[in-house]
């Protein structure tokens, strides 16, 4: 089990004391570009992430945070650049990468007319999850939806659907968790729940990339912050020795450009 505090750092030039040198990068992004038609969104992203890190993606709306996560989730092909996850090329070996990645977005990506359990069993089939029924029921219980296991998603509230989305993403025990405003619609209890789920994920050796607009949250949950601006990385820093005021200042500086 890897504790988040002595996580392996790699590829960003600085090393904290006691950190190990990593031979294989967990995730490596080189010169990533993505345009939708003629409109460029990502204009050259270079990022390396080590296993067990929790990277907070910050940035104003439209700077490419969602697009970056979509590319990592293999929902869309990059226009240029090289990405590897655990050594697998994200374009050529997309199927393998999809198996390793779990995405929670502000859309729950669930089927409205199916029940909670049916949804999870379907995704269990898609991800070739073993003992799918047991895992599905366990996860539904974990996210507090046991009473609504056999009810259709169309009857769920926004928060309940979002919780189930978390269950869906964790069903196949992904090694990389991608969270795009994944706390949308959740109440206080829901917030607490996903914090715990996130801790458990990291404790299992999982890595996380999450977007947020709240700088405090980025610092409290994340091990590193990455600030995107106009499709490029404008600033990144480990959170360990980063005071919030400095982050706020940097943020204002970058966004004001």
């Amino acid at each position, binding site marked *: 089990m890897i504790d988040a505090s002595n996580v392996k750092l790699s590829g960003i030039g600085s090393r904290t004391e006691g950190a190990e040198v990593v031979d294989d990068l967990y995730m490596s992004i080189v010169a990533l570009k993505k345009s939708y*038609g003629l409109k460029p969104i990502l204009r050259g992203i270079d990022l390396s992430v080590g296993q067990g890190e929790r990277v907070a993606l910050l940035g104003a709306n439209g700077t490419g945070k969602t697009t970056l996560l979509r590319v990592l989730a293999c929902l869309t092909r990059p226009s*240029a650049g*090289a*990405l590897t996850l655990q050594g697998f090329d994200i374009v050529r070996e997309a199927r393998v990468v999809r198996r390793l990645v779990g995405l929670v977005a502000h859309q729950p990506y669930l089927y409205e007319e199916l029940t909670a359990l049916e949804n999870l069993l379907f995704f269990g089939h898609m991800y070739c999850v073993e003992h799918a029924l047991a895992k599905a029921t366990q996860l539904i219980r974990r996210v507090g939806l046991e009473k609504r296991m056999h009810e259709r998603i169309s009857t769920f509230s926004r928060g309940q659907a979002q919780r189930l989305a978390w269950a869906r993403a964790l069903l196949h025990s992904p090694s990389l968790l991608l969270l795009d405003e994944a706390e949308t619609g959740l109440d206080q209890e829901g917030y607490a729940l996903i914090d715990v789920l996130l801790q458990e994920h990291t404790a299992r050796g999982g890595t996380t990339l999450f977007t947020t607009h709240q700088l405090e949250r980025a610092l409290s949950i994340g091990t590193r912050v990455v600030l995107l601006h*106009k499709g490029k990385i404008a600033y990144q820093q480990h959170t360990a020795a980063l005071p919030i005021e400095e982050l706020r200042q940097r943020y204002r500086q970058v966004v004001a450009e």
Partner: protein
Amino acid sequence: MALANKETTNVVQRRGTLAARKARLPLVSLVLGGLAFVAIMTAIPMAFLYAQTDVVQGPAQRIFYFHVPIASVGMFAFVVMAFTSIMYLWKRDERWDWAARASAEIGTVFITLTLITGSIWGRTTWGTWWSWDPKLTASLVLWFMYISYLMVRSYMGRTSASANAGAVIAIIGVFDVPIIYEAVNLWRGLHPAAQVGVPGALPSDVVLTLMVALAGFALLYSFLMLQLYQFQKLQTFAQRLRATVEYDM
């Protein structure tokens, strides 16, 4: 481990300046255009004066010297379109897509002319503007396929999704056309009608005229391909330049 993706854009950066590339094309296309002009200008008087008048159909048969080459080019353009589309899907190089679009546009025009000349010929020979003859019907369906290709490409703009969609249409179409021809053939076999075409061995002057006309239109096709390919390339670069300015790259 990490294999860099070939960028599907920015051909210019990879292959040197645009100016350097421009130098080659005008000469080749000029030569082709010139030859095409000469050949077609030769074919016209040959068709009307040199070749003998057909005994059965009379002077109207002379349209055959234009209809056949035009139809051949129209069909060939579709095959080229399908081939370049397959290459695009395989290599992911947008230049293949430019070629596919160029061939599609040329093919559409040629097939339209095929339908018109075929219709005129049919009118003079059988008295009807249209008949469900296998070749004409196949040409009509081909026309629809070309039009649907152009429509989809136009709707979807200059994205890779558009190129993919066009490629799929072209590939399905190219497999379909022979089957359509066969189906119509079997169908019309039940209702014998005058066939478009000259049966039996052809006299040498007819063959010669036909060959000249065929060469002329083939050269015309090549010339147009080069021109339209260049046009597609320039359009793509122009749009990208506009995007650069607009999106503050």
